[in-house]
Every structure is written in structure tokens, then in C-alpha cells.
């Protein structure tokens, strides 16, 4: 109880900061731009116009949610560090772990709200069950990105490097499956160099989240995933977010402020 209240205050302050910083307006602008784009493509499509709209909106809004969360977390964390707000927080009777995880919870809450905002309009194009699965997956994906952005902002302490590292990790996570497929196809010859390249790609894949398997547009267009596939997708997101949180906690505990 003694810890719960300050944590709730910290989470609330982060959400409030995001609201006052114009995040809702940016999200609504992204919704409006997406709808405009969808209206345009439906005019030039010869067939599958509704599927095209749904696919385009899902892809654009997924990217927007992730981008907004990453920039919000990075900017907010670095502002707090630079304004010495973090040092002030450290004077409170809260452990470093509690402070770090409360911050992460606050940013993940922002990501969940964004996921709801971007999932709701998709009800026009897809079945409610599919939209629900997609939205929950997006909320978890935004949580993972929040964990990555917080980790990099805390460790690198510079805006551009932190945001670049977050974007790099995210994009690599979304394309590693395709890179592995290319490596397997092109390095089919048994030479040492080819095998080494293939193993290197596989080794990198082991420490990356498989983001192309989550928040799938195919769930909206065709059929929802099986329970096991969905559980595996969400499980992989939660697992990687925990890994990033653990990495962040490790760094935060070792730091002299």
C-alpha cells in the first residue's frame, strides 16, 4: 500500500504528460490521414478495395502507434534526466526497481490507449473478434517498444542515438524473418563463408523479437489466428519486453546518479 500510491501517481503523471504534450492530437491526426489515404486508394483499386483499405490502415496505424510511443518515451525520459527530475525522484523512498517499472507501466499504458484509438476505426473493415485480437497484439507490441525506448533512453542518454537504436531494433525485429529466408535461399551453397553468414543471421535472430508474426494484417483480412499461434505471438512480445525491462533494471541499478 505504501508503495502502490506513489507508483500510481508516477504512472498517472506520465500519462498526463503524454496527454498535455499533444499525443492525443497526433493520434487523431494519424487516424484522419489514414482515413484520407484509404478513401483515395479505394478510388483507384479495381478489386479488393475494402481489403486494400483495411491492410493499408492496419499497416499505417501500427507504424504510427509504434513511432508515437517510441518518441514519447525517449523525449519524456531524456527531459526528466536533463531537468534533474530523475535525481529528485531518487530522493523519494522508492526502490530503483519500483521507479523504473512504474515508468515502464506508465508508458505501456500510453501505448495501450493508442492501440485502442487505432483499433476502433478498423471495426468498419473487419470482424470485431479479429479487431480485438489485433488491438491486444498492438498494445503488447507498443509495450515492447516502450520497454526498448526506455532502455535505450536510460542507457544512451541522447535523443538521436536512443531513438535510432529503438527504431533499428524494431525494424530488424520486423524484417529478421525475411532476412533469414534470403540467407537460406542465397547461401544454399555449402562453402564456409555462406554457412557462416547463414549461422550469423540465425544467431542474430535468436536475440531479436519476431515482430512479423505479431499484429498481423492477415488476421483482419482472412481469418483470426489459432489459439496456439496467437498465444505464441503474445507470449514472445511479453517475454522480450521482460528481457528489455530486466536489461534496463540491470543498467539502472548499477548507475551512480
Amino acid at each position, binding site marked *: 500500500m505504501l508503495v502502490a500510491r506513489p507508483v500510481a501517481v508516477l504512472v498517472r503523471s506520465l500519462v498526463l504528460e503524454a496527454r498535455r504534450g499533444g499525443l492525443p492530437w497526433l493520434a487523431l491526426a494519424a487516424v484522419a490521414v489514414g482515413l484520407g489515404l484509404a478513401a483515395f486508394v*479505394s478510388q483507384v483499386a479495381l*478489386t479488393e478495395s475494402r481489403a*486494400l483499405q483495411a491492410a493499408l490502415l492496419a499497416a499505417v496505424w501500427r507504424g504510427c502507434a509504434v513511432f508515437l510511443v517510441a518518441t514519447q518515451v525517449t523525449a519524456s525520459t531524456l527531459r526528466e534526466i536533463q531537468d534533474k527530475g530523475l535525481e529528485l525522484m531518487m530522493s523519494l523512498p522508492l526502490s530503483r526497481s519500483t521507479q523504473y517499472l512504474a515508468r515502464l507501466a506508465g508508458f505501456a499504458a500510453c501505448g495501450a490507449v493508442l492501440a485502442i484509438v487505432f483499433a476502433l476505426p478498423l471495426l468498419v473493415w473487419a470482424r470485431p473478434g479479429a479487431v480485438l485480437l489485433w488491438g491486444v497484439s498492438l498494445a503488447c507490441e507498443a509495450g515492447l517498444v516502450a520497454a526498448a525506448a526506455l532502455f535505450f533512453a536510460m542507457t544512451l542518454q541522447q535523443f538521436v542515438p536512443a531513438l535510432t537504436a529503438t527504431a533499428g531494433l524494431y525494424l530488424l525485429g520486423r524484417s529478421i524473418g*525475411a532476412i533469414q529466408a534470403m540467407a537460406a535461399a542465397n547461401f544454399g551453397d555449402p562453402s564456409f563463408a555462406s554457412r557462416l553468414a547463414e549461422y550469423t543471421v540465425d544467431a542474430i535472430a535468436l536475440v531479436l523479437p519476431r515482430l512479423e508474426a505479431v499484429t498481423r494484417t492477415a488476421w483482419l483480412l482472412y481469418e483470426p489466428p489459432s489459439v496456439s499461434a496467437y498465444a505464441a505471438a503474445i507470449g514472445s512480445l511479453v517475454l522480450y519486453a521482460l528481457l528489455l525491462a530486466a536489461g534496463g533494471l540491470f543498467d539502472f541499478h548499477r548507475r551512480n546518479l
Partner: protein
Amino acid sequence: MTIDVRPVSAVPRWVLALLALGLATQVAWQARRDNGAAAAPELPPAPTVEALRLASFGEREALARLAMLHLQSYGTPDYGRLIDWLEVILKLDPRSQYPLFSAARVYAETGDPARSRMALEFVYRQFLLDPNRRWPSLAHAALLAKHRLKDLQLARRYAQALQRHVSASGVPPWAKQMEIFVLEDLNELDAARILIGSLLQSGSLNDPAELRFLKQRLEELERRLAKEGR
């Protein structure tokens, strides 16, 4: 989120002039530029499916459909390259009907029989990989082979493939007896009307853009046949 600002008069005049001049020059420059529509470039060779998959960052369904819109912007492309593109796009999202619809309804309906055959053969090859999903395009291909190419043998080959490979429930009975339908003494307009009508009835045809496109095609066909005095 409010920002305190000073009045416009606080800005030096040369800055205002520079802003106005910059904007005017930008608009004038862009207005003089070709918009690219007048001289459509040549269709480049198709990328590999792995490259497209990489470029999609996991959004294969969206990229496949956007690539189809991009392909539409090339007026009369090289058909060898076009078929490669259609094949790659279909591999990117095998459940999309867009590449097959375009091949059968747009690219096969050209005045050049050789190109038309290339597009029809593409539809036939891809149909064999997933008959229960891809039959509508081959049904149209059979009609095109009969009425446009006047190649009854080719039309029967497609019709027999439909009969042999389509097994899903919900497919109209005529599609499963396509050979009889092809051999019937119907003109192109009547055959097209029956095909579209039954697609509507079976629920396979419900996209507004596709309905608009097919209605337009039927009207064009009516006009063409009226002009030919049939």
C-alpha cells in the same frame, strides 16, 4: 499546448520577403515539372519475393495490394515482366485475388492475342496451385479464350481444369460444369452476364470497386457488340 508568440511585425521584413519568395519559387518550380503521368517509365524487372518480403517489414498483405496499384500505373507494360510481377505479388500474399483479377480482366483483355494468351496462361498456372480460391479468374479466362481469342480448344482446356480441380462447396454449379457452359451457343455478353450474376448470387462478388469495374466492362461490351451489329 500553447506557445507564446510575438506579433508578425516583430519579424524582420527581409525574413518575410524571403519566406514569400521561397514559397512562390517552390510552387512555380513544382508547377513547371512533369507530373510523371505523361511519359510512364518502362516497367522494371520484378524483384524477388524475398526482396519484397523484406521491404514489406512484415506487412505483406498491404504491400501486395499497393504493388498492384503501382503496376496499374504502367499503361502497356512488357508482358514478360508484367507476368513476373504478378507472380511475385501473388507469392507475397497468396490469398489475394487482385493479381489474378487484373490478369484475367485487364491484361488478358488486350487486342494483342499473344499478350492475351500470356496473361491467360498465368491465370491457368496459378489456378492449379489453389483451385478452390482462384476459380473465378479461370472461369473468365475460359470465356475470353472462346469469345476473344476464338480458341475453343483453349477454352475447353480451362473449363476441364475447372471441372476437375474445383471441389469447394459454395462454388456455383455452372463453374463445376464449365465445359457445357463454354460449348453452349451463348454470345459473349450473355455469358458474361451469367458469370457475373452467379458470382453475385454466390456471394463471391461483393467488393464495391469490383462491382463498379465489372458494370463498366459490361456496358463497354454492350456498346461494342451493338456497334458490331450482334
